[in-house]
């Protein structure tokens, strides 16, 4: 029993991670109507950048990560201006498929540069054997993930609630046309959203890499589950996305422990279908006007 409980708890931690990626995706979707399928590759790229700083330049891990975050933000901004913004009037579907193309491009580039010797051991941020609470083992990694997720969620909440930029993004997400009409500079805000998205992604990748082993396709299955979590919880709802992702995290982890990985994929898929049958707009989603 405690095995399952343990699986469930680390499933929560996993779900929180998915949820963080999910935040980035929902934020982008709400402000721009674009579903970012490149989220995973961008995140993995960030992790590789950090890894290169550590391995080839010998920088201490925290510094490497910080630098990687800055570079990720830069990559996000460049992506916005080069890939997303030009001819954006081609429609939401077109722009969304661009993210798929971007994902493939990044994957190919990473394979080319780092593929041959993958997977790599990514240094862990924390070490130790963990604590035991009520027969369940909580590794330092779990605790770190939980801690970071909570901290980020709080930071994001404060950002959106109290800063001018956060307020502008909320307005832009709710009614982009009116926001522009009132003078909000949508390209600056768009670039900012992409930068934040990429930073979030890299944070997740860096937290995942020690246990998942760093390789170009590292985030692929995680992204799949994240998207499922978002669809389950409600595409346009931040709490919904987190809720959906945590549910997916728990159920997938428990199923993996009970059966195997393949089974978990099938179970989550069936779960998604059931969710769609019962509530197509998601648990916390609103049945409103179609954007995409």
């Amino acid at each position: 029993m405690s095995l399952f409980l343990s699986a469930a708890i680390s499933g929560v931690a996993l779900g929180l991670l998915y949820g963080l990626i999910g935040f980035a995706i929902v934020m982008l979707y709400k402000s721009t109507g674009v579903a970012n399928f490149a989220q995973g590759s961008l995140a993995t790229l960030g992790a590789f950048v950090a890894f290169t700083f550590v391995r080839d330049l010998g920088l201490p891990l925290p510094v490497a990560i910080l630098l990687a975050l800055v570079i990720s933000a830069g990559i996000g901004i460049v992506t916005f201006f080069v890939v997303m913004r030009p001819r954006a009037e081609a429609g939401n579907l077109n722009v969304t498929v661009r993210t798929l193309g971007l994902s493939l491009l990044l994957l190919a580039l990473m394979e080319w540069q780092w593929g041959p010797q993958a997977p790599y051991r990514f240094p862990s941020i924390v070490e130790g054997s963990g604590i035991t609470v009520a027969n369940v083992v909580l590794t330092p990694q779990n605790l770190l993930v939980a801690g970071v997720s909570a901290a980020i969620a709080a930071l994001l909440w404060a950002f959106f609630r109290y800063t001018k930029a956060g307020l502008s993004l909320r307005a832009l997400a709710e009614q982009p046309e009116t926001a522009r009409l009132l003078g909000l500079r949508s390209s600056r805000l768009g670039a900012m959203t992409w930068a934040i998205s990429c930073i979030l992604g890299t944070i997740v990748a860096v937290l995942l890499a020690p246990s998942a082993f760093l390789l170009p396709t590292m985030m692929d299955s995680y992204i799949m589950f994240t998207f499922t979590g978002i669809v389950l919880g409600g595409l346009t709802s931040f709490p919904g996305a987190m809720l959906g992702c945590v549910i997916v995290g728990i159920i997938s982890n428990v199923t993996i422990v009970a059966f195997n990985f393949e089974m978990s994929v099938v179970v989550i898929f069936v779960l998604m279908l059931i969710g769609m049958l019962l509530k197509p707009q998601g648990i916390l989603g609103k049945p409103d006007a179609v954007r995409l």
Partner: protein
Amino acid sequence: MIETTAPAVTGLTIRGLIAGYGKATVLHGLDLSVAPGEIVGVAGPNGAGKTTLLRAISGVLARTAQELSFEDTPLRRDPVRSAAQGVVHVPEGRKLFANLTVEENLKIGAIGGRVRNFAAAEKRILAMLPNVEPMLHRKAGLLSGGQQQLVAIARGLIGSPKILLIDELSLGLSPTAVASISQAAIDSCRELGTSVLWVDQNVTILSKHCDRMVLLRDGISVDIDMSDKAALNSVYF
């Protein structure tokens, strides 16, 4: 009060405006001007192009014109730029940010209007539109239509714009709400020296507050003599 001497700075000048949706042109070469501090009303039935006119001015719609300028500077097809130039559009149906509070809505107006000191701007707008104050911390989506319209006006005025484009203020409001909100809105604009281009179906309210009126018909504008009651009554017939 209508200014009879032409001031040194020009206001909104439009000549030969053509605009529409794809190939369906709605405005066929319209001329219109609004002098600084002037309150101009545009009447016309639905589909005549009133909203199209305002959207063309603020740059949301594609348009061509012989001249489309404000204070002698051409208005580009960029609503963000227009807003920064002092041309602020209060859209049809209010379009407040429903999940934001009233104060947050005002803040957005201030951000767009490049206001430096929000607290001061807020204080000034509340002095002119005191009815907004009790609503400051309520979510905008929960307000009544009339309350929303008042907040939309406040949001538009908080950046002290040079000209306010008001789209169908009376839409869906009760007659008493229309009366009180129009009064408050126009008084505030006069106090700020903001000129107004007000598009509305309600001929009577326009004739009460505007310095000058124009009828939008067949895609062009036709002047209306506001003193001719009979003419006003048969505007749509």
